[in-house]
């Protein structure tokens, strides 16, 4: 999950944020890390660029991008399917 946090920081240009500053179960949006809808699009691109995973159902977005852990679980599940 540390790698994923590093990728999120780089993709969203979260200046002055270190991977350890982001909790595994911390909400990424609104009251948590404070991300917004443009960041959500950036995270979709991150999944495609880094993990070749295309978010097929937009309604899954809120669940997938809830926390770093939910993102990691989604990536792991899809990598297992593709293997």
């Amino acid at each position, binding site marked *: 999950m540390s790698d994923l946090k590093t990728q999120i920081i780089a993709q969203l*240009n*979260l200046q002055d944020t270190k991977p350890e500053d982001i909790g595994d179960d911390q909400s990424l949006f609104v009251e948590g890390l404070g991300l917004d809808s443009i960041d959500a699009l950036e995270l979709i*691109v991150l999944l*495609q*660029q880094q993990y070749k995973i295309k978010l097929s159902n937009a309604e899954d977005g809120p669940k997938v991008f809830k926390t770093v852990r939910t993102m990691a679980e989604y990536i792991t599940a899809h990598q297992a399917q593709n293997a």
Partner: protein
Amino acid sequence: MYIRATGNISPQKTFGHQPLVDAVAYTGNRLACIEPDYKDFIDPKQIRRMSRIIRMGVAAAMECLQEAGVKVPDAIITGTAYGCLEDTNSFLSKMVEFNEELLTPTSFIQSTHNTIGAQIGLMLQCNNYNNAFVHRGFSFESALLDGIMLLKENDAANVLVGAIDEITNTSHTILNRLGLYKQGPVSNLDIYKTKTKGTIAGEGAAFFLVANEPSATDYAKLDGLHTFYKPEGIDEIEKQIASFLEKHLVSIADIDLIITGKNGDAGEDKIYEQLGQTVFNAKEVINYKHLCGEYPTAAAFAMWLAAVAIKSGELPAALNYTGSADKKINRILIYNHYQGIHHSLSLLSAC
């Protein structure tokens, strides 16, 4: 129309309203802005999405509004010729790199020419008139003209007008290849002596809060602004200058100082030198592009310089001005042209 406040980020130490004591010297054909610590002006959460030009523009605008004591202006008008080049370059590069797929939205959103005005509006929660002018060498003048019209028609009592242009590695390489800039080692402080082809690349973000009512702390009064396109020759330029001054009931003798846009390019400077023999003969004339470099909205730097000179009554020490030093500067004429195509005249006077 009164210039109430300014904010200027340039290759000189102009930000923070400090006196411009020493000119910063550069070697090479590119001048880069001296940037402040943006965290004092922009929320860190917002900074992360802003490229350099957006930060420069927003910070200069914020400094201007702070000085004016205005939280929300009646209008925000920006002028830029190149727009947000860094974001445009990033967006186009990714299109190629990822075969027109997987494009990140941020660079695209930020690549439009009205991004800076929009960001200022968003930060201020300002839903008032917001416009951007992309008129190459007239971009700043068009923005200012729009502001003048809003004030004259009483559609606004105060207007934030600014000009922003950046030079990036890519744009510098391309423009250098096109022969715009001098080759070999050159100091910005010596560009007028070189008598060779080409100028030096510059950039900057200058904002002005202009108002239709005077205040006790105004910099200067903007008496007039005029633009003309592709004049046929020096005779037409002279006629344009004479007609501009006549329209504003001023003679050349009433002008204390002329600021010209000489940029060190032997070809482009010919116009200024010819005027020095005729209309501007025996007048105090200074240049400013050794301080900020050449770019399509450089006239905004000249306006900042004129406003500061009129407010203080003297030119900043960095200009090493040795003319009529004992005479207070009350009225300044700015004449600038960009590549011999876009010509502008501005007349400023003490309040």
